[in-house]
């Protein structure tokens, strides 16, 4: 397993490099110039523009800029040490390391996506298995109806509805943010109150997706002989459905876990905006708008790593839930 892990991680290096090449040149090819955005104020001159461009190494050819970003500035004129030395470059606008800006926001995004994943997984699983067991009943129909509705509902609209009711009208939950204001040591309850709405809005799509998958897989498993045998032997239905059937139904689900994590992090971009959640989603969107290249590239690498790790996680989980599978 260790050699498999090392091999997969080594394979990831050229993948990430390829992603950086494509992203960097696509970004540079898109219209808009960070130096012009930086100097977009009265009184700025072409001299100021050129000076700032030189300080940021943006006066160099694009290929050279890429290699400066990758290996550092060999001329010593720009203060960049390069990605291979762990330096993602400084944000053009905040003038501090891009990776530092990501690292201080990643906990917020991971917290939100983890809770959304747990919420979606738990409810989706329960809903899917129950729907399959009670196939054709009003519960099954209702669950299927809502799983389609929640999959189709736009997150920004649903989020605003929840804010209007629970925060503005009732005042039960905060409008947004991760922590309460002016509280030195927020309690667990405070933290949870801030998590409830964004978790529901982000997780509800995952509930819908998971419920549909679980229903289909459970129905498939319920037709298997061993389930019939277990029931015939007099095992409790709850044990049969949730211990035997659900576990086997989970196997295909695990394969979508990796992409689901990536999708959740992507979805968090919208949710973080609605709920003013200080995560990487808002940072990335703002960086793209302002052409803050080092921050965008740090985001690209983070996303690439996330996709690779997500898929790796799927592979390992598959081994855990299905003993027949071996990693080679």
């Amino acid at each position, binding site marked *: 397993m260790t050699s498999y892990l090392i091999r997969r991680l080594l394979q990831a290096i050229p993948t990430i490099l390829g992603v950086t090449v494509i992203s960097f040149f696509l970004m540079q090819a898109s*219209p*808009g*110039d*960070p130096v*012009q*955005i*930086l*100097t*977009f*104020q*009265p*009184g*700025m*001159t*072409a*001299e*100021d*523009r050129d*000076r*700032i461009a030189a*300080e*940021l190494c943006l006066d160099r050819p694009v290929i050279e800029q890429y290699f400066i970003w990758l290996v550092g500035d060999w001329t010593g004129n720009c*203060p960049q040490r390069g990605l291979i030395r762990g330096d993602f470059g400084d944000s053009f*606008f*905040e*003038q*501090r390391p891009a990776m530092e*800006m990501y690292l*201080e*926001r990643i906990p917020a995004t991971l917290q939100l996506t983890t809770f959304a994943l747990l919420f979606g997984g738990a409810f989706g699983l329960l809903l899917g298995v129950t729907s399959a067991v009670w196939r054709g009943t009003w519960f099954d129909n209702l669950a299927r109806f809502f799983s389609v509705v929640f999959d189709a509902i736009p997150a920004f609209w649903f989020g*605003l509805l929840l*804010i*209007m009711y629970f*925060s*503005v009208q009732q*005042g039960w939950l*905060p*409008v*947004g*943010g*991760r*922590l309460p*204001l*002016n509280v030195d040591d927020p309690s667990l309850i405070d933290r949870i109150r801030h998590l409830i709405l964004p978790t529901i809005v982000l997780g509800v799509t995952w509930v819908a997706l998971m419920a549909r998958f679980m229903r289909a897989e459970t129905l498939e498993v319920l037709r298997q002989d061993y389930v019939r045998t277990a029931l015939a032997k007099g095992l409790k239905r709850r044990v049969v459905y949730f211990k035997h059937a659900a576990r086997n139904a989970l196997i295909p689900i695990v394969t979508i876990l990796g992409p689901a994590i990536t999708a959740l992090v992507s979805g968090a971009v919208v949710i*973080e*905006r*609605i*709920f*003013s959640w*200080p*995560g990487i989603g*808002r*940072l990335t969107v*703002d960086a793209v*708008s*302002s*052409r803050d290249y080092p921050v965008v590239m740090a985001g690209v690498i983070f996303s690439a790593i996330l996709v690779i790790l997500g898929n790796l996680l799927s592979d390992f989980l598959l081994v855990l839930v299905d003993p027949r599978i071996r990693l080679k």
Partner: protein
Amino acid sequence: MKKRTRLPLLILLLGAVISLLIACQPQVVEVEVTREVVETQEVVVTEEVEVVVTEEVQVEVVVEATEVPPPQGGNVVESSFADLNTLNPVLGNDNASSTVYTRMFASLARLDPVSGAIIPYLADSWDVSEDGLTYTFTIREDAVWSDDTPITAQDIAFTFDAINTDEVASPRRSNFTEVDSWAVIDDKTFELTLKSVDCTVLANLGPQGIIPAHAYDGDPLNIPDSEENTAPSIVSGPFQFVDWIPDDRATLAANPNYFLGQPNVDTWTFRVYADQSAEIAGLLANEHTYTDPIGPQFVSVIEGEVAGGRDMGVQKYFSNGYTFVGYNLANPENPQNGWDDLDGDGVWTDGEPPLEQDPHPVLGQLEVRQAIANSIDYTGIINKVIFGQGGPTVANVWPSITWAYNNDLTPYEQDLELAAQILADAGWTPGSETNDAGVPILEKDGQQLRLRLMTNAGNETRENIGIIMKDVLDQLGFSIELDYKEFGTVVQDLLGQTYDMVIIGFGGGPPEPDDSSQFSYKNDEVGAGFNFVSYYNEDFEANLDAGKAVPGCSEDERASFYVENQELMYNDLPYSFFYIPLNSGVAWNQLSEITPNTWDTYYNMEQWFFTQ
């Protein structure tokens, strides 16, 4: 007959007079008055019968006049939908950052909240030499940093050095164009020398936040990588740093060493929301105490809440900004700098004359601009697009600069017949092709009235103005292509001067009528300059130069230049001005002494307090 002493009456009168005098004091002074019941016994002798008369007289005795301090404590939470980039005033360039670091770093001067005049702040006073070239600032004796170190002229010099150090990459450097040198005379005296008389220097450099030299070991090269940029440890303003969670909040606490006195409130939090809708939801959920300004589309909602009894108030004031459509007067196919680059260095240098540029094939003609100016539904835009939250304006100086504002100009109004007549008189006739409205596109000498109208996508106000303009202009025979794109691309086209018309706005301007950065040919610089419309008028240029260089910088003497310039601009039409925004600041009623205004809402921040 009863005989009464006059003493009680006198005391009453005295009390009333003193009460009246105290009531007339401008400060919040509470007079402690004790109402005493004085029992007076009078002995009246009436024919050998002794009668004791007892009378109760109420006497107001003034004990003492005590200034009662306002309630202390509480947290002011101000909202924003933009996050800050830095907490260093040398590096800052955006409104959100400025709002926060200005609470921590005092400047030499600041703006009078009513008139916008430059008034002393860290500097107690300043003298200007007779030739108008040397400014000598005297720094307040009681001004200290939060670590008790005196604020000195060395700190001012360090700040100015830092801004002009290449490695620091300060966006503030362009404010020093006319500055020749600066020097520390002594600990509390700082001298600034100009290359030539520049009446805008105080407006440009006065509000610059001063940073502590000792926090950077006196070396500007330590600034770029300093933690002080995100967590300042030594400050001079009313508040000091507590924490900053990017995209979430910045929290500051009252600075007990602030030279104007420790603020009454404990903390001030700058709460960042993702957008305006979230910000308003937060306001309605009582999550923050103050928002300024709220978007025009939300004003009626908030006013409805206030009318319904919500405990908050709305204060309105005209912004120091405007929204306009700018006309590119030069050919977008051939963008050129506005001056004849005699020395070929690519930048304007003293003595280089204006260049007669290749004009825009359509907008280069004044009649076309006049037709557009007379076709715009200004009232409709104010009433329908910004819901009445704005006022008409005529030219480039906003009315809040009262001394330089031209009151004689009448705002343009929509007159479609006049607009059509102007075009017809100028020789524009219907062609064979039709526009989106099915109206024949006007032509003249083979040139069609085709124009692109650009603005930044996502800004609903500007997008809606564009739609209104297109609707009307298409009816007149123009063919308007709406060109809505992402802000970075708009900036590129705007500064690159490759557009036809742009809807954009400026805000937060200084209290200065000099806007040479926008309208002087010296700033008509492809890729950088703010005169992106390539405007040039010889008289206008002469007035800009003269208004800036008036010896003594008397407002009365300067005013005539700017008043005339507004008239020139009104007639030349490089811009058509839609409106000046009417900002609405919303604060809880419990937050007292806060007065949102055009120039400086925070001028008395140390006096803000919560009544409960």
